[in-house]
């Protein structure tokens, strides 16, 4: 299938990009691996859904629909190359379907994932990622009456705690590893972002009885009988105490999903895809918006997406530059506020598993020349997740930047590579797309 503008990711950034490009006359296709559009925040957002409370979401979805952009859900992009071809896998009742898409312009709006850091006990049943538990609950997992410690770092912790409380969980505490002093300039800056303040107010209403402890972190998760979580050991650097709980929701802020950009050969700025003021990457026909270009939250995703969409359509985006710069500055302050403390690097014990796919303990990662060497000699990062989980952890623990992103992005059936010749011009999908 051909698209003048192909957008990967239907979160806020992708939705904004697709809408802007389509409203300005481009033929736009949006690919997303979820069953519905919306991304991490707006997941489950359909226009007719009765319980849509969020006005911004509602408006964005309606405008997207009117714009004429075609949204194809349930497609996971597993490979992409700079010649302008993207391949997706779709699991359907009748089997796997591989489709190929050709683009003139591409917008990468693939969002972010949580960062996990290994500590003793982090692999116990009952320990979840913070966003991971939130997603489970959105999918129907019940936490009613469960006693939950929410820990780690980042603004996501409060969002998750609020959501879990709304679903009937008892949040015993929210533990933020950053110190109050570190957080203060960020908190102050929220006054200049009224929308964010409203979100914060909602958290406070839901969690007014829950202690929010800055400068504290979990050092160990402890199993009870039956080898499931019973309590966590917590420290503030001087004192250490135990908090009993049924579940631990623990995440250390976000890491950008930049693998597709790496496949294409886009230039990077540290962990992020390098973009100019038009959200253009180092490849002239590839744009990037939202988290992969810098973790800066919803508003940044929306404005960057719109800029990218307008740039694809050859329209001016000058009027959006001020807002965009302000959101970038907000992102920078957030990055400083939630910078990880050094103590987190010494949490794993020698036998603490770092790579869950290949069962590699921390001790085996010592004494190597770097990530490639450690990977070759220990198999760390060689499993099904290809280092997407342990890679960011190892970067924190040992300072090695993950390297060598290879296709496929996630495990696919062998047959997915047996696609008809990529050079053929006509449509080459295996089955017709479903209505």
């Amino acid at each position, binding site marked *: 299938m051909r698209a003048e503008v192909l957008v990967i990711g239907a979160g806020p950034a992708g939705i904004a990009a697709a809408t802007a490009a389509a409203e300005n006359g481009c033929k736009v296709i949006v690919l997303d691996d979820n069953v519905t559009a919306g991304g991490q925040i707006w997941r489950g957002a359909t226009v007719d859904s009765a319980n849509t409370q969020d006005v911004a979401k509602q408006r964005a979805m309606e405008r997207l629909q009117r714009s004429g952009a075609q949204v194809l859900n349930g497609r996971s992009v597993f490979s992409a*190359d700079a010649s302008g071809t993207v391949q997706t896998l779709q699991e359907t009742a009748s089997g796997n379907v591989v489709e190929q898409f050709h683009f003139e312009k591409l917008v990468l709006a693939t969002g972010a994932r949580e960062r996990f850091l290994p500590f003793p006990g982090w692999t116990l049943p009952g320990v979840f990622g913070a966003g991971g538990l939130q997603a489970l609950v959105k999918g129907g997992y019940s936490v009613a009456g469960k006693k939950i410690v929410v820990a780690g770092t980042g603004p996501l912790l409060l969002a998750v705690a609020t959501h879990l409380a709304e679903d009937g969980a008892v949040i015993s505490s929210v533990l933020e590893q950053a110190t109050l002093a570190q957080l203060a300039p960020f908190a102050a800056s929220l006054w200049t972002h009224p929308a964010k303040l409203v979100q914060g107010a909602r958290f406070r209403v839901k969690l007014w009885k829950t202690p929010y402890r800055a400068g504290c972190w979990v050092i160990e998760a402890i199993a009870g009988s039956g080898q499931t979580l019973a309590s966590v050991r917590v420290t503030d650097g001087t004192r250490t105490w135990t908090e009993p709980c049924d579940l631990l929701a623990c995440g250390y802020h976000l890491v950008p999903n930049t693998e597709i950009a790496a496949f294409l050969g886009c230039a990077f700025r540290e962990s992020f895809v390098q973009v100019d003021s038009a959200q253009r990457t180092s490849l002239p026909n590839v744009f990037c918006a939202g988290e992969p270009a810098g973790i800066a939250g919803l508003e940044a995703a929306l404005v960057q997406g719109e800029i990218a969409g307008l740039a694809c359509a050859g329209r001016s985006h000058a009027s959006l530059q001020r807002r965009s710069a302000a959101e970038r500055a907000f992102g920078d302050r957030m990055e400083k506020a939630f910078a990880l403390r050094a103590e987190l690097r010494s949490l794993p014990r020698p036998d603490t598993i770092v790579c869950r796919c290949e069962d590699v303990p921390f001790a085996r990662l010592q004494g190597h020349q770097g990530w490639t060497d450690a990977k070759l000699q220990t198999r760390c990062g060689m499993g099904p997740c290809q280092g997407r989980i342990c890679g960011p952890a190892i970067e924190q623990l040992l300072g090695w930047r993950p390297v060598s992103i290879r296709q496929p992005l996630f495990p696919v059936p*062998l047959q997915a590579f047996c696609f008809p010749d990529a050079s053929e011009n006509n449509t080459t999908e295996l089955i017709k797309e479903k209505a």
Partner: protein
Amino acid sequence: MKCFDVLIIGAGIVGSAVARECALLGWRVGVIEGGTPAGAATAAGMGHVVVMDDSAAQLALTAFSRSLWRAESTKFPKSVEYEGRGTIWVAADEEEMAEVGTRQKVYEEAGIAASLLTAAELAKQEPNLRHGLAGGLLVPDDGVVYPPAAAAFYLAEAKRLGAEVFYARALSASHKQVRLSDGTELTADRIVLAVGTECDLLPALPIQKRKGHLIITDRYPNFLHHQLVELGYLKSAHKVTDDSVAFNIQPRQTGQLLLGSSRQYGNEQPEAEAEMLRRMIDRAKQYMPALEKLSVLRVWTGFRAATADKLPLIGPAAGLSEDSSLWLAAGFEGLGITNAPGAARLLVDGMLGRESAIDATSYLPIRLTEPARLAHA
């Protein structure tokens, strides 16, 4: 300036094996690695330890080197994943089956165990092969290893015996002097180039890059028991012109399957190519249709260091360089894992003027440039 008896440039499996062989003599050994040890072709390869008979010289070297692998197999750490899986050369039709018979005789004469499998025996050994194949040749003493760990084992042994490793690139190497990218200068009586496909230290090295693709699957224990190679593989490996693919599949100790293989000249781009992958998979499915459903974790490419006569360069650089301190251990094409311990032995024999277990003249670099001088050597 630091002095050594020998400096080895390149810590792939070949350089590492040479380093250990030299350290065993009690020599002062220095190893220089500019990238990640075992991070180049050695990380990309399949790790099939296999006897091959493209030529008499190839048969002699692979058989000799395989015997060294086997002799040491109980000494390796677990990480080397050495397994005496055996190879089955698969014959698709009666014509290939006739070839299998000829091949068995060649192996027999060389003292290599090899037995004929009928169609029914083949199906019993490997139930996931399709029905209707003609049979095969089982070479039971071939093995499978995990090459980066084998190379690391050799290097660790060399270090244990006193070798020193320098993590920097060699910028020049001639007349007993080596200059490193970090400014270090080293000197040694002999310098060994074990540089894989990289020819910048000696541009006269007659080596071409030959690209190969590999595919690794998720874990499927007991799906496969031997390394399977289609009989046509040798033809594919022998070709020097077109791109070719052949069915070649390996069971890993983890239960994963490693699927090869392709050969391309004149393509130095490391990216995996959809077209080559498709051809490889189509070929594999003709032998093992059940593969189609298995899940792929990763695909990658690597470069073999190919020479014109498909034999490695083992010995003094004479013929390519007037510098008598330079030695070569390079050009191993698709057999550098198999041949690393054998090559290390031959190289050191040459340095010591010691007689070798096999005739080493076929591998001397000078054969390519001055065959006449070789006759008098």
